[in-house]
């Protein structure tokens, strides 16, 4: 199960933070700070997995943005790596060539996409097309 999802830039600014387990605000800030420290300085040749407290963080870097998933120690790391990539493809498709600024100004839409992709810490939909279509329907209701 995914414990939380973080999207941070290289400076450590959080662009998206979704927690599927309850945490205090102060604890959330600590977690965000620690995860950023863990992933930001790793060599690109290194594994995309770092142990974090009693869990592990699967992260992947796209340009200046780090996508990090914190998952259970028994979860399939490679699958979650693929999962990050699928999420990025969906964002890319939705914003047509996504960049950090898109995510900043449309952060609420990013949350909306995420809610169509992952729910309760589990994968909800694996088709990029289905999610994009669903987003189109929701946009029409605005």
């Amino acid at each position: 199960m995914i414990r939380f999802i973080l999207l941070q830039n290289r400076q450590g600014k959080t662009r998206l933070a979704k927690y599927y387990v309850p945490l205090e605000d102060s604890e959330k800030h600590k977690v965000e700070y620690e995860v950023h420290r863990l992933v930001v300085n790793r060599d690109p040749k290194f594994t995309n997995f770092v142990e974090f407290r009693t869990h592990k963080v699967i992260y992947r870097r796209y340009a200046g943005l780090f996508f990090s998933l914190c998952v259970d120690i028994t979860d399939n790391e490679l699958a979650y790596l693929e999962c990050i990539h699928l999420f990025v493809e969906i964002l890319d498709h939705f914003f047509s060539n996504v960049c950090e600024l898109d995510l900043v100004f449309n952060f609420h839409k990013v949350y909306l996409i995420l809610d169509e992709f992952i729910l309760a810490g589990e994968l909800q939909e694996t088709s990029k097309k289905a999610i994009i279509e669903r987003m189109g329907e929701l946009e029409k209701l605005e």
Partner: protein
Amino acid sequence: MNPFSSGTRLRDMIRAIRACKTAAEERAVVRKECAAIRAAINENDQDYRHRNLAKLMFIHMLGYPTHFGQMECLKLIASAGFPEKRIGYLGLMLLLDERQEVLMLVTNSLKQDLNHTNQYIVGLALCALGNICSAEMARDLAPEVERLLQFRDPNIRKKAALCSIRIIKKVPDLAENFINPTASLLKEKHHGVLITGVQLCTDLCKVSPEALEFFRNKCTDGLVKTLRDMVNSPYAPEYDIAGITDPFLHIRLLRLLRVLGQGDADASDSMNDILAQVATKTESNKNAGNAILYECVETIMSIEDNGGLRVLAINILGRFLSNRDNNIRYVALNMLMKAITVDTQAVQRHRATILECVKDSDASIRKRALELVYLLVNESNVKPLTKELVDYLEVSDQEFKGDLTAKICSIVSKFSPEKIWYIDQMLKVLSEAGNFVKDEVWHALVVVISNASDLHGYTVRALYRAFQTSAEQECLVRVAVWCIGEYGDLLVNNVGMLDIEDPITVTESDAVDVIEIAIKSHTSDLTTKAMAFVALLKLSSRFPSCSERIKDIIVHYKGSLVLELQQRAIEFNSIIMKHQNIRSALVERMPVLDEATFIGKRAGSIPATVSTPTAGSINMPNGIAKPSAAPLVDLLDLSSDDAPAPSSSGGDFLQDLLGVDLLSSSKTSGVNAVSQNGTDALLDLLSIGSPPVQSSPSAHDILSASQDNKTSVSPLDGLSSPSYPNQSTSAGVTPVMDLLGGFAADPPKPEDNGSAYPSLVAFESSSLKIVFNFSKPPGNPQTTLVQAEFTNLSSDNYTDFVFQAAVPKFLQLHLDPASSNTLPASGNGVVTQSLKVTNSQHGKKSLVMRIRIAYKINNKDVLEEGQVNNFPRGL
């Protein structure tokens, strides 16, 4: 209208924040926005409520407090339109979590929305419920979610399925309601519904054994077929990743099969074919394919044994391990850890590759590999593996050295085939990474060295060499200092030379150099320095030629600001200066430390210290007459950093001796010293423990006694003459006592021989009376035989009668069994018990004793205690 609330759009606010050049500017902008939003909240502004909440979410993401907006979420959720509800639910998920009380207020809105006619609103409610629902909400809303599992729109069904996972995790009791609807989800064709259904099924199996049984019997075949269809499906662009149709679904299915197959041969059997197909047919050139293979291997390893499949799985891991991609190697190491319990031999084949991974630059890989190597070690490969690890220790990163040394030490102590190898490896580790070694590790090493008497010379020479190159490694220095103190003579004289050694020439002064460096080094901590002092004292006796120099070093520390060092310096100096005659006996080599006791102690079982005389003749607990093992282990128990610890270390032993030593110095130093004796005895009494001693009277007693005896002390003057018996060699603390006993034994006092002493009422209460009768065995004035008579003054019989006595350290007590453990009522019979007391301070101190009597009256426990101070003088 409020001038603020019309204010900025969300986009403008974000822009304004991004334009800030400093953190202070940003705070100012945020503060202004927050003030405007609060004002709008107070005015209950409807029009901009959802815009304000969106702003608050952004502000929250930046890390500012936004709790004041929580109620706004609830208001938005309660409003009618979809855009308002959408922002409201988003805010609810971001700003609140399941622990807030406010959440209770939202349950009703959620219930309404779950029953809404607009399926998009139902979707919003399900999403919020799935992400933040609490146990209470789960109970309240479970029926709605259960119903939605059969909703016509697949988007709702899949959301409801994931919501159900959260519900059954919060309230496992609800699991059985979900079993049937889940079974129908597993038959779906829609990938989204199927993958969520499979996940729900997996979680149901985890929380409910009935569910596991149900799905295992009813759904295993269906799931196998679904997986087969997936594997054989033609190209499906919508779900295709790297040429594989929906790898995520593959993985979820494999995981569910694993849960169903674990511990059930039939279910495992029915999935063998498809697992073999996945393991052989899946493309492994892309991450997606490897993810499936990885999951498949884990399933094969977990379900019931099928030899062929396991070979296949181990081969896949072998391929993974040699992959250039670090991610793949990482998961291979991870899986090999699980495989090792299934097939050790197969994993052993990859040992060389795994060992290479320990040296990887990536900490994640190193850590996995090291743990795996640790599991791979056995008696046959311990030597080459340890060599590799120790060699790597030299070049490894600082932050990895801690983990690595801990593992090496553990391997070496667990599998060492012989002592010399153990000592060699430990010395290598100490030289490379002595600062990372934990205390118990080098304590254990000292115990082993102490037990390997044929290797003492070899070890001390090896340590001497290691010290020359690695004097900055604290733990190495400690072990070296200890060994040189103990075995310095073997170092200098090249005693016990082994064939493999190069001869070295070490002079006595070289050996002292080592200790001096350890004392003077700024990196040495208090423990090391304190140990070095003990070593110096020992060397001063072993190397008479260096005695003067050692004295100078010690004298230098008499003014040390560190109390422990100052005390040691003063005490040791006094030994060197004034007590040449007993010094060599004081600094005897430590007796062999008992390994079993050390290990037992480490495991937390502390040897019992209380003994009772009922079991027959056991010497009483004053620490002296106990078997040597336990107290000696205490010497090693240098509980590391805290300052007082060292004094209980090597010092413990010595301080005991010194306490004794002070007593014998009384012959030169008049009344002061005598009164010191008094307090000393008092301390001794206190150290016996149990309830607080009525100290002052006894102290006076002893004091006056010793003062009275001062005249009789004079013959002791003769003791400093070299004629004292040099019979001090055997083990333990006892010989030292004997030794001191020897002093007093020399001048026998004629009055002692066999003379009669008056009887003494040692204890009298309304119920019990104890009388002591004394006699002296001829020719041994130190020893007193005491015949204790117990009389029952009450009208009830006493059963389980036990008499216990404790004496200070200068006395030794031997209790014989009592004549009976039942004491008849009203003085109708007497129980007797004989005691033998040996007074090592005979002639200077009187006997003193604390007594305790335990018995039962009509099965009720009674305990009486007392102290006997009025023994006749001269005993």
